[in-house]
């Protein structure tokens, strides 16, 4: 057993740090570190920087313009980019649809879509969940009917994250309504500008517009936008879901959130001293930090086991559950750390460039909203209940 990073890996970490120090725009990092809103432009600006360096598509093979990183390298990137306050990569194009296109798409699709993802021309969103198909995804009912050289799509998708920015959506659609429910599904790439596509915002409990409903009314989709074979979409969907879950543990994000919490707790006062020196609160932080350390180590074990290729299996489900619980606990503590000041919701302070007097701690404004917003962590990407079902079935054989 050797728990050290190799010399090459350490050199890689140095390279990553140097890059982040030089290229990560300060205004963007400041927003990320203080949990302010990022604009579409912020994401695009950072994406261009990454693309220029060849580090945007970390999961892709080099032949398609990917970084071709090993799992350990990806992990180092995750640690460092979160430490420096780089925006998270919006995963739907580069980390979700792209692996499916690379693995199951045809030559034309690869040639057309992959470069457009790399250069930022396309912003993808995910058309999986439907009002009647959440945890039971395979019961989806959005219908695609073949009509000559195109499909006609009718139905509704929901919880479409950042769909308001997207020009493309990858969809699971039902092409054979008579087959067993997993067997009649196809994987379609749809241009959001097609006639008949409507996007409607869903406002979440914190007042944010992050998710959407997407409606399809007689939308014509060329047959060449079908990925792989008709009615084999469920296989591709599952392949994509494992990718989705891999990143969902969010170890790097949890570390950043923990630092943010410690900063808050150092500045808040309780009984005439910093809250972080209050024994009860300090123990609460310590407990979650230890849990995080354990999860980080479990994450490394999974990474090491898939080093050299491959996609982790049901272990990533376990990690998704743990990782999201930890992040929710950190959000809970940050909210607690504010005391009565968790109540005020001063929206102006959420905007970067706010120049007024902060009501309390400059980092306070997003805290309670984020606590509520991050209840989603245990719901999306397959709810934690579904993840546990997967572990029970796949690992335990129950």
């Amino acid at each position, binding site marked *: 057993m050797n728990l050290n990073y190799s010399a090459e890996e350490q050199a890689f970490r140095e390279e990553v740090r140097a890059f982040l120090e030089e290229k990560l725009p300060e205004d963007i990092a400041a927003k990320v570190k203080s949990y302010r809103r990022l604009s579409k432009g912020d994401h695009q600006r950072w994406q261009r920087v990454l693309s220029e360096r060849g580090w945007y598509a970390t999961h892709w093979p080099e032949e398609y313009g990917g970084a071709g990183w090993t799992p350990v390298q990806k992990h180092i990137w995750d640690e460092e980019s979160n430490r420096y306050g780089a925006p998270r990569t919006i995963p739907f194009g580069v980390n979700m649809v792209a692996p499916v296109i690379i693995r199951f798409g045809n030559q034309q699709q690869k040639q057309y879509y992959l470069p457009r993802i790399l250069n930022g021309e396309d912003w993808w969103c995910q058309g999986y969940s439907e009002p009647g198909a959440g*945890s039971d995804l395979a019961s989806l009912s959005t219908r695609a009917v073949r009509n000559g050289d195109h499909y006609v799509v009718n139905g509704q998708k*929901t919880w479409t994250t950042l769909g308001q920015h997207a020009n493309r959506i990858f969809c699971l659609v039902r092409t054979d309504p008579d087959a067993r429910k997993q067997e009649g599904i196809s994987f379609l790439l749809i241009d959001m500008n097609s006639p008949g596509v409507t996007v409607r915002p*869903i406002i979440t409990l914190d007042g944010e517009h992050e998710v959407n409903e997407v409606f399809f009314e007689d939308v014509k989709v060329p047959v060449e936008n079908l990925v792989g074979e008709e009615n084999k979409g469920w296989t591709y969907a599952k392949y994509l879901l494992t990718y989705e879950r891999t990143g969902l543990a969010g170890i790097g994000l949890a570390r950043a959130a923990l630092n943010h919490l410690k900063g808050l707790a150092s500045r808040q006062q309780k*009984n005439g001293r910093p809250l972080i020196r209050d024994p009860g609160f300090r123990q609460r932080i310590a407990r979650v930090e230890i849990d995080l350390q354990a999860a980080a180590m479990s994450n490394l074990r999974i990474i090491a086991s898939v080093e050299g290729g491959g996609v982790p299996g049901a272990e990533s489900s376990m990690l998704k559950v743990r990782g999201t619980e930890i992040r929710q606990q950190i959000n809970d503590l940050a909210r607690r750390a504010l005391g*009565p000041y968790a*109540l005020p919701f001063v929206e102006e302070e959420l905007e970067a460039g706010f120049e007024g007097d902060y009501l*309390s701690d400059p980092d306070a404004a997003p805290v309670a909203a984020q606590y509520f*917003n991050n209840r989603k962590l245990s719901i999306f990407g397959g709810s934690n*209940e579904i993840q*546990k079902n997967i572990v029970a079935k796949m690992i335990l054989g129950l």
Partner: protein
Amino acid sequence: MDFRLSEEQQMLQDTVARLVRGEYSFAKRLEFSQSEAGFSTGFWQQLAELGLTAVPFGEELGGFGGGGVEVQTVMTELGKGLCLEPWMQSVVLAGGLISQSGDEAQRQRWLPGIADGSLRAAAGLQEPQSFYDLNNVETTARASGDGYCLNGRKSVVIGGHTADLLVVSARTTGDSRDARGLSLFVIEAGTAGLERRTYPTIDGARGCDLLLDNVLLDDGARLGAEGQAADIIHYQAGRAVSALCGEAVGVMEVACERTLEYLKQRKQFGVPIGKFQVLQHRMVDMMSELEQARSMAILAASVADQPATEERQRTLSAAKYVIGRAAQYIAEAGIQSHGGIGMTWEYDFAHYAKRLVMINHQLGDDDYHLERFADLMNTPA
């Protein structure tokens, strides 16, 4: 032993319940929240006309001397509608402080207005550094002429933004965390040097910070003996804690009802999701937390008007601890059982969840009250 409400209490409950059902639909609540006052002045008027702003006061003020149970009864029904009106702040907390410590002239001057609803009051008892400890006060009250000059900042005064009267604590002597040296003052809206910084709260209500910059008050603005207000503050805060427990029970009841309805109605994998054991057990845990919380709320109500003793203090902290824990659990478990729909603005559940979590941030969260209970806990001699 009889846990049932008396006939009068039952009538009070029916009155408030009917009013809330009739006037406080979820859609209207959203409108009230976004209106200029942040609540419904019309609804406040109706509370007043029905005599509900007088509940805890004596007959001479149009009330019937309602105690902990009556106050909780009102709060529970207001909680079911997620009502935004500062009834607790005005009637229970600020009104209670004046009623308990004011002299005859002060009571005559302010209480009739509070009791008939024509005056709204709020209490500023906490400060940026106080973290729920109401003795932790840095606002100063220096002697000045015949009265006082106040300087400092009172934080997160729910309902303070539209209050006609603000009862604030300030220090005449002592160090920032001493119980001794605290005094209470009534500041009328419009007094020079009083600035309010108003903001919405995450749970849809509104509050403000009070910035006191050389606020000059005459001697008649001080409630009770100089420097002796700590006991009064803690006693009334205890009543307010009991009131919040009552509100929380109302909010939790609706949150549990909604979740149970959803489990029965939402289908996945061809069956109502309530058929899945993992969701059944969570729902059972939510209901058990609600019942524990209800029990402790009843206990809190029963001691709210008892003489100030350690036992009373301990019981109130125990209640707020159980309520705080239950409220957060029901909010989080309820959202999880709903899935994404439980997080949307358009569906009322999310708003119940937000109120539940935020009740923890008023007058002490579960951590704070657990610590207080532990400090006061009986131990073998």
